[in-house]
């Protein structure tokens, strides 16, 4: 390329806006996630009713003015329940992913940097875990540990660790061959600084992107676990268990009890998937000028 420097920041906002306009789908997805997360966090203020407030007179009402998404058999407002349940879902999705990322990356970096026997040992362990279908593994762990929010988080995290581990190990393999890793050594950096200041920050972006996709998976796993009766169970409400409960009512015609919790799951997972690519762009310190 010609020897021209690209001026930063002065038009940064305009650039961001331009790219937002091109990636409007991701922008919508991101907004959806943010709105849901905020609503879930402020559930007490946002939800129109108490999630456990029963109202026998209003039982099994279809979506209407008073209850936007209808009510269940106890007269509890479905919208409020979905908002409150969202806290558990999103918290576990983020939490499990974050935990898996932290553990997977730490071990993966060690494997990538030290190679040799250490790498061999770690990777064979990873291979054994990955030999199990992830969901079966999650089921087994939850069944063993018992049904609770914490255990579900641990189970999902454990099944995800191998992915991050392999990813970051691969990235470290790639980066350590790059010249700035060499330059870091020549300048006199000790091994730990090379790892944390030079290699890790550059290895993370693709991992972060993977993490957004994995959050969708975590959500789905959690919902699936509750659906089949493992993990989070009533009275603790969660989108998956709500969908399971709602399934019973399809035959009797109360479609909203099944549809809306299920839709919540679908929209969230879809949103996570859609922001993945654009997130990579946003995380990259380079601003691409040409599209």
């Amino acid at each position, binding site marked *: 390329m*010609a020897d021209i420097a690209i001026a930063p920041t002065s038009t940064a906002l305009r650039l961001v806006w*331009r790219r937002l306009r091109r990636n409007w789908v991701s922008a919508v997805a991101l907004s959806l996630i943010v709105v849901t997360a905020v609503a879930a966090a402020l559930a007490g203020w946002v939800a129109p009713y108490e999630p456990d407030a029963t109202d026998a007179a209003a039982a099994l009402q279809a979506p209407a003015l008073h209850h936007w998404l209808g009510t269940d058999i106890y007269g509890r407002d479905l919208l409020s329940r979905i908002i409150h349940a969202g806290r558990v879902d999103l918290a576990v999705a983020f939490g499990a992913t974050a935990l898996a990322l932290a553990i997977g990356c730490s071990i993966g970096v060690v494997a990538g940097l030290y190679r040799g026997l250490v790498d061999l040992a770690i990777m064979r362990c990873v291979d054994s875990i990955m030999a199990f279908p992830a969901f079966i593994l999650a089921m087994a762990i939850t069944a063993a540990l018992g049904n609770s929010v914490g255990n579900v988080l641990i189970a999902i995290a454990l099944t995800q660790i191998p992915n991050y581990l392999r990813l970051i190990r691969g990235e470290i393999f790639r980066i350590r061959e790059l010249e700035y890793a060499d330059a870091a050594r020549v300048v006199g950096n000790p091994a730990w600084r090379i790892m944390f200041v030079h290699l890790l920050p550059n290895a993370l972006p693709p991992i972060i992107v993977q993490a957004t996709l994995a959050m969708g998976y975590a959500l789905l796993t959690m919902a699936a676990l509750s659906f089949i009766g493992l993990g989070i169970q009533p009275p603790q409400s969660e989108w998956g268990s709500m969908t399971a409960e709602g399934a019973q009512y399809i035959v009797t015609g109360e479609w909203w009890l099944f549809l809306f919790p299920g839709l919540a799951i679908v929209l969230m997972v879809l949103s996570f998937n859609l922001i993945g690519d654009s997130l990579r762009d946003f995380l990259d310190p380079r601003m691409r000028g040409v*599209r």
Partner: protein
Amino acid sequence: MTAVLEVRDVSVRFATDFGEVDAVDGASFEVREGEILGLVGESGSGKSVTATAILRLIRKPGRLAGGSIVLGGRDLARLDEEELQKIRGTEIAMISQTPRTALNPLITVGQQVARLFTLHAGLPRAEARRRAIEMLAMVGIPEPERRARQYAHQFSGGMCQRVMIAMALAASPRLLIADEPTTGLDVSTAARILDLLRELGARTGASILLITHDLGVVATTCQRVAVMHAGQVVEVAPVRSLFRHPAHPYTRALVRSIPRVDRASVMEPVPGSVPSLLNAPAGCRYAGRCPWVEDRCRREKPAMTAVAPEHFVACFAVEDGRAPAV
């Protein structure tokens, strides 16, 4: 001498987030029959973009913004994709600076070359294979039958480039565009590739447009040369004339900035830096770096005028006599 390729006033524009970039601005030159024309310039000068434009391979966000590209009487700028596909590979061929990546790693080298014969000449497999081995021998690959059965990764850089040349010349094109064919090759390998190009050009009668940033390559291999700066063609001349009497201020500065291996030299860097092509001003793009610049230079783009037989320069200072003769 007849012109095989006539590039007239070609412009290539790119739409970027920052604005419009005129990567090539009104470039004009011709490649004559049987000659090797050098297109020389630094990176950002637009020489590779020009090559891509000639092949009509410019894709979004770039576009051919004007001019004509006449090859054998037909204006390539006016043809549609179907007709262009018939021309690419048969009448015009191109080799680039990364030969190994241009070769298919999954099939043998022999198969790759043979495919060209089955595709363009419609030859049956056995015949195509025979011709392929002939081509490999012609480009100087030792033991061609054995090598034809090998894969790209088993060839050295220089060998890969020879294979590329073989593939390019397979259909006997009238014009071969060589885009920095020796960058990235060792000195001695590069010398041999250039010798090969010269020899094959003479033997097949193909004209060669040799794109390079190396003035040494130009001096040893080309008959005529066109100098580009920031997307504009600033000087076109026979090689001897260019080196003995460089006219354009940029050419003069360029010649003075390269160290020599055959004698002790003084290096003077080209003053200033390549201007940004973003929303470039009208007028001569060397204006910001030129010691003989005038107001007029910034407003008007100078036309090519002759300063000696066959030696053309686009510069007001040279026209007006402000720049001393060399």
